[in-house]
């Protein structure tokens, strides 16, 4: 049905329309966010808080803190990610704006990809702001392995945002959204968390990219598997 209604724009290829729609949706989300800075601010402040509270929980031993630093950073990021998804979800469910967007779409997975990219950008912004702080507080020189760290964090953030966006959409339909999202999101992302924490910890220890290749492959496979799975099942989530 949707094919027929769009046949008059046949000269424009399907993939081009798809790309345009993804970019338009992403632009819409980022523009809203730029005006309010609501999601980023809450994610960032929350991540900082988690790091600080963990710092107190662990104690003042600098060597110990160095050892657990990567774990603390990733916990902060996962939790912040849950918070960001909840805010995004609330914005979408207000005045049923999600329905309006869905009506306009040729292929609904465009919505998924746009939401996922937006979430990933917020997370990357949080990482960029939080790493220098952690570097100072935990006395770790992140600059020494910044290239490798970028790769590890980008792959990890991609996985977190894929799984997070998917469950965020499901949690929209539940009564206790605030409870259900972390309950679904955290256990499923455990493989990613384990691999990412180990990769980051080894990079901090001065290991090379080759040493952590296994972990990066694991994160990559996690990303690919869940991305494909999300694209397949997304239609069932937003279907009315």
């Amino acid at each position, binding site marked *: 049905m949707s094919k027929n209604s769009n046949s008059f724009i046949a000269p424009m290829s399907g993939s081009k329309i798809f790309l345009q729609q993804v970019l338009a949706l992403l632009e819409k989300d980022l523009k809203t966010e730029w005006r309010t800075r609501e999601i980023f601010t809450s994610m960032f402040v929350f991540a900082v808080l988690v790091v600080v509270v963990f710092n107190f929980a662990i104690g003042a031993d600098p060597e110990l803190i160095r050892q657990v630093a990567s774990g603390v950073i990733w916990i902060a990021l996962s939790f912040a990610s849950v918070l960001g998804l909840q805010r995004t979800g609330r914005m979408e469910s207000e005045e049923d704006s999600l329905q309006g967007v869905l009506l306009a779409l040729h292929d609904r997975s465009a919505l998924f990809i746009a939401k996922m990219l937006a979430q990933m950008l917020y997370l990357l912004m949080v990482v960029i702001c939080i790493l220098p702080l952690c570097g100072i507080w935990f006395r770790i020189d992140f600059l020494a392995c910044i290239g490798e760290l970028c790769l590890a964090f980008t792959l990890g953030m991609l996985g977190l945002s894929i799984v997070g966006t*998917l469950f965020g959409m*499901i949690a929209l*339909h*539940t*009564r*206790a959204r605030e*409870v*259900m999202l972390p*309950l*679904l999101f955290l*256990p*499923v992302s*455990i*493989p*990613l968390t*384990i*691999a990412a924490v*180990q990769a980051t910890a080894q990079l901090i220890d001065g290991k090379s990219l080759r040493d952590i290749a*296994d*972990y990066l492959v*694991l994160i990559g*496979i*996690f990303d690919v*598997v*869940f991305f494909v*799975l999300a694209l397949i*099942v997304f239609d*069932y*989530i937003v*279907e009315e």
Partner: protein
Amino acid sequence: MQKWWTIMLFVMAFPFIYLCMNRVFHATVMCITMNVAIMLVFIYAPTEKVQGIVQKIFYFHVSSAITMFFAFFLVCVASIMYLWKNSDWWDAIALSAAEIGVVFCTLVLITGPLWARPIWGTWWSWDPTLTLTLVLWLIYVAYLMLRIEIYDPNRARFAAILGIIGFVDVPLIRWSVEKWRTLHPKPVLIQEGGTTGLTSAMLLTFLVCLGAFLLLFFYLLRERISIAQSRHALEVLRHEIDEIL
């Protein structure tokens, strides 16, 4: 490796056995098998030399672990079938299998530490298999909570998605916890309860025990599906009454 294939085939035969039996016959066979299994475990099977009487829990622990994996596999298959065919029967299977799977998972998590305490000297170790079971428990408890929490009439669809994702996650979790453990090796790890070098008497006992557990699983599944279907029929009737009024 060959032994694993035999056990897989053994397990896979049970759905067909289940479909062939009616309820009363199923219950009878299950009772007999359970009693035989208990007798075999405590009278027939030889006591293991090193671990002694503690090893007997292996028959129950591993049987419930295999049943649990089978239950979660069934959740995944039923979820895919539900999304494909959109029939309530498949949804009832997924829900029932998930509930009973969580029960068996809890059994595994209880019997595991009971065995580990005298043998490893600790209730819990973050061994890959234990960790995997714990994470699976968390995922499927979340699955059950999701089913309760959704107010949407299409809740079965969301649950089905989680049912698929949860099972796809299993190899990834397994891989990651294995890599994670190899970094922090613990010297206390022994080969798990006699999986290597079972005598033929032990293997027979184990298979009968596994059979009893699978029969129990399918019996509970049968009953749970009929509850789910009655509940669904009740909902439909209630809806009709509401429309009339």
